[in-house]
């Protein structure tokens, strides 16, 4: 009962197409979870089921102890749709006042919410004149209304520049510290910037990996790349000393398994004057993500 969101054996079929197959996970209070997957992996479908916008084919979903889409659940869940859209004739302030009224909150809070997402200066302009990033912030502002126990954010950082993205994650940290659960989706691991507690990877409607970034890194066991710069005139000698190294321009690149990393480093350090420089490149977030999302069905 401690979890804000519980999903078990969730399956959704659109006629012949299986959008989600046997997905099971839960989100605890105060936890920040990232849902990753390529386009069409089923992220948005899953979110719509949690919100009660569409019905599941089979499986059980419980949101804040209630059925998805029930009045009880809707009171406690905030949602940011992918490509948040609003009526272009309204100003940001009017739109947020409307959402506040719908949640039974005081509309006078609207300006404060817009300032929180950095839109105070544009609050009285029509949304039709906003950029995509500004509309995204209006969407974000409406998720902060009241004290939601669960925030469902569909690609919340798309359209945000790197600075805004950092501000956004700071906002999330504050919400999570207050006890709100956060489930956000993204199609790239780099976008979630490891600012989440747990990562779920969805591929073709199936859950293919689940865990913290460190756990996923371990589980993937991708090789580490060592990039060696030879001292002047030592390139040939160094290439002989490091069998298996691939020459890339002036550099020699060596790919070694996680377990052999320290031994390889010791060997390169032992070459002394032949080496001018050394870089250790752990597998990138993109590499890890590709490893999991491609494993299925290929």
């Amino acid at each position, binding site marked *: 009962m401690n979890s804000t969101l519980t999903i078990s054996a969730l399956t959704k079929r659109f006629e012949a197409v299986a959008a989600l197959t046997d997905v099971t996970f839960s989100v605890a209070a105060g936890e920040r979870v990232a849902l990753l997957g390529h386009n069409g992996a089923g992220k948005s479908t899953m979110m*719509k089921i949690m*919100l*009660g*916008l*569409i019905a599941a084919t089979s499986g059980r979903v419980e949101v804040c102890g209630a059925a998805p889409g029930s*009045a009880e659940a*809707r*009171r406690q*869940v905030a*949602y940011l*749709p992918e*490509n*948040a*859209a*609003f*009526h272009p*004739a*309204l100003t940001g302030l*009017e739109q947020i*006042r*409307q*959402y506040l*009224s*719908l*949640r*039974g909150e005081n*509309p006078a809070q609207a300006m404060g919410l817009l300032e929180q997402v950095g839109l105070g200066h544009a609050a009285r302009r029509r949304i039709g004149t906003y950029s995509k990033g500004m509309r995204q912030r209006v*969407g974000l502002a*409406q998720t902060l209304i009241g004290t939601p126990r669960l925030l469902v954010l569909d690609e919340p950082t798309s359209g945000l520049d790197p600075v805004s993205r950092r501000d956004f994650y700071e906002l999330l940290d504050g919400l999570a510290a207050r006890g709100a659960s956060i489930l956000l989706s993204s199609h790239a691991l780099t976008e979630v910037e490891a600012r989440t507690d747990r990562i779920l990877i969805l591929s073709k409607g199936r859950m293919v990996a689940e865990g913290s970034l460190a756990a996923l890194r371990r589980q993937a066991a991708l090789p580490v790349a060592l990039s060696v710069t030879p001292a002047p005139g030592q390139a040939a000698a160094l290439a002989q000393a490091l069998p298996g190294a691939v020459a890339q321009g002036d550099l020699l690149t060596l790919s070694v398994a996680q377990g052999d990393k320290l031994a390889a480093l010791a060997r390169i350090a032992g070459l002394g004057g032949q080496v001018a420089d050394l870089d250790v490149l752990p597998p990138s977030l993109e590499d890890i993500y590709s490893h999991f999302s491609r494993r299925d069905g290929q």
Partner: protein
Amino acid sequence: MNRILATAGTEFRIALRNRWVAIAVALMALFSLVLSAAGSAPSGGLGVDRLSVTVASLTSLSVYLVPLLALLMSFDAIAGEVERGTLPLLLTYPVARWEVLLGKLIAHLAVLSLAVVVGYGLAAGAALLVDPASASGLPALWRLTWSSIALGATFIGVGYALSALARRPSGAAGLAVGVWLGLVVLYDLGLLAAVVADSGGWFTTDVFPAALLANPADAFRLYNLSASQATAAAAGVGGAANAIPLWQSLASVLLWPLAALGLATAAFGKVTP
């Protein structure tokens, strides 16, 4: 209640910004003034006051114009939200679908009522100015005003239902035009053709009155013409249906808005965002 009023306030603001308020008021005012100017010549010979004549003319006008305005304002209500992508977010809010519809209805009906009151007010003012005896036509004007608003509510509800069924603004607009043509124009032509062909037989006595009552536009015309009586000759349909008691057309005028809103709620309930 707060949620409904907040939705109504927002929708009214949108109608104001989209110029719908200005368009509706200007259209009603223009047509009413033209009618009252055109209808001024023959009134002396009829022995009826000017305002009653104006009301009869306005009835014939409103039967076309009020449903048209109502459908134009309402066809986008749900399809537009679907197309803009604003519907999924709205439906995750703790607000029931009927509350959303009711909020929109209040706003759209307010715009329509404003247009009707301004238009009829101008025409009535002109009549009173020319003929002081026109005060006797005020009850007819009052009847016309509230029944026009009821007619508007009916077609706004029908517009919402079409909007929910079509799910795309272009499709909803097409359906709205079709419904307007069908109910307001072709329906009467069809009935008249049938009555002529039937020449006083079973269709004319049994089916025709029921068919008139079943159409909200015809019921509106029937109610206003038979209630004022002064100008039953103004419309062929009105004259042919003198046999229908007043309470029946009144019931149709009052029940249709509720039925249309029920229809709209049912259709909206079937929309999956």
